[in-house]
């Protein structure tokens, strides 16, 4: 195994020294929060659909992928060299809206036409159905993208190029050079948190869905159109996935790519599970946890203290395993939901 983690005492001390410099801390925290924001936006849609409805939605990643590509397309078509930063950001907002609308619609249609007929079956089948649809979405995307002479595998740099320079530049925070994009992501992340919180707490949908996932028949009998509620929430979940995708479009760590279909899915799952099924609080906390852990290991790797190349993957799944072992129901999950 190629973990060349030297354990000579001096090096360890040296490591700690480097870690506790303000610049390092600042970098890890700010970048961590930036990533956390992305993870949250990617995961929150899944929390609605999976956590509340109990539908493990395998198309989540594929939807984010669509969001990224659609967003990229609009940007590429509308942005030229001359376009100023503000215009680009404005356009970005428009794209957010457009993609959100598009995918919410698409998601609702998908739920209405394919998932609704099988709610009476075990959740197993919803998992499988979405899994199949995810396969289809990814393949079709690959075909289309390729037919446009764009490689589906490395991120689509054309789209990433439309980011305003201000975002790709790096600013000095406590001596740590930090990419401008992170600030933007953090802002959007906060907006997302607030938005979803309002939806869950100012409307009764959250409640209806939770009740519905336990006993839809009973909810219906109480005069609530639970099917419609599910359709709406599933649509929103998909729309949020789309927004996540758009967010990734400018992020040099991601970018529009067919790989999102799987990567986003795995990350979102892990965040939701670590947070605890159906817990909004949990998702926020988990996103931050994963984000910080990510930026920390990235730092470890960058400095060459750890040169094990599998680190990123290992980080997230290691985290998942450890979490589930020490706290089976996740950060904010209901005891019994997790285990006995």
């Amino acid at each position, binding site marked *: 195994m190629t973990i060349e983690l030297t354990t000579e005492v001096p090096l360890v001390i040296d490591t700690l020294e480097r870690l506790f410099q303000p610049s390092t801390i600042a970098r890890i925290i700010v970048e961590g929060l930036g990533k956390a924001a992305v993870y949250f936006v990617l995961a929150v849609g899944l929390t609605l659909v999976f956590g509340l409805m109990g539908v493990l939605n395998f198309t989540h990643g594929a939807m984010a992928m669509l969001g990224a590509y659609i967003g990229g397309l609009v940007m590429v078509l509308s942005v030229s060299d001359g376009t100023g930063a503000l215009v680009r950001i404005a356009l970005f907002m428009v794209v957010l809206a457009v993609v959100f609308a598009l995918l919410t619609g698409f998601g609702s249609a998908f739920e209405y036409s394919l998932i609704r007929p099988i709610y009476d079956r075990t959740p197993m089948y919803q998992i499988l159905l979405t899994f199949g649809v995810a396969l289809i979405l990814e393949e079709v995307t690959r075909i289309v993208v390729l037919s446009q002479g764009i490689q589906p595998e490395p991120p689509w740099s054309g789209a990433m190029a439309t980011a305003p320079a201000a975002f790709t530049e790096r600013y000095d925070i406590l001596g740590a050079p930090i990419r401008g994009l992170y600030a933007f992501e953090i802002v959007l992340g906060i907006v997302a948190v607030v938005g979803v919180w309002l939806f869950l707490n100012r409307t*009764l949908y959250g*409640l*209806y869905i*939770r*009740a519905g996932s*336990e*006993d839809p*028949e*009973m*909810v*219906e*009998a*109480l*005069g*609530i*159109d*639970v099917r419609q509620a599910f359709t709406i929430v599933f649509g929103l979940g998909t729309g949020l996935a789309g927004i996540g995708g758009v967010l990734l479009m400018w992020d040099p760590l991601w970018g529009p790519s067919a790989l999102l279909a799987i990567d986003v899915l795995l990350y979102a799952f892990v965040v939701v599970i670590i947070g605890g099924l159906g817990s909004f609080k949990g998702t926020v906390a988990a996103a931050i946890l994963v984000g910080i852990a990510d930026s920390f290991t990235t730092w470890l790797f960058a400095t060459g203290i750890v040169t094990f190349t599998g680190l990123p993957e290992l980080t997230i799944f290691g985290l998942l395993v450890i979490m589930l072992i020490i706290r089976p129901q996740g950060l904010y999950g*209901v005891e019994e*939901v997790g285990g006995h």
Partner: protein
Amino acid sequence: MSVLELEDVHTYYGESHVLQGVSLDVEEQEIVALIGRNGVGKTTTLRSILQLTPPREGTIRYRGEEIVGKDTHEVSNDGIGWVPEERRMFGYLTVEENIRVAVKPDDDFEAQREYVYSLFPALDEFSEKEARNLSGGQQQMLAIARGMVGQNELLLVDEPSEGLAPMIVDQVVDALETASEDTTMILVEQNFPLAMELADRFYLIDHGTVVESGSTEGVTADDERIRRYLSA
């Protein structure tokens, strides 16, 4: 004009033909009891009215309007409420949330909640508790409460006294009687004397059809018509 009319209703579970032509009608303000042995189709009758298991044949008219083929939530919003057998709590929701789901969005939640707690003080005590952690009887109370806060004009009550201590049963009886002043009711009750005490009329169901019906005046279990079907 009668509130509800069932005409020759046939209902199936998959292939098993459970309701084999049930006909009955319910008048404004009255309490009608459905009695019969286990497994004869009482609950199924209620489920058929709610369109939870829509009849394959026959018509069900609510205030003159055909409701077969409607969605359950539409039927419910027409003003038909349900207190199911076996409680059907939302186990992972708190007592209060359970009530919240039952109260119509446009209704005054606070008021309704207070009404419930005045009916069953035990629930007030546990309002923040997840329903699955309530005792069986407490769950039964919650189930009945849910049925009462829905602004219903017709309430379908399935075995309300099940699992309740004698004193609580009295409370429930009072509650139902108060409710019945402005609500019509269909009552499924195994406790025969209780059923007779509460209801104005009864329908006796056997093998998915109505075999006897009439006023509950002075009817006892050893009444010949009844005994024939009830006693083993």
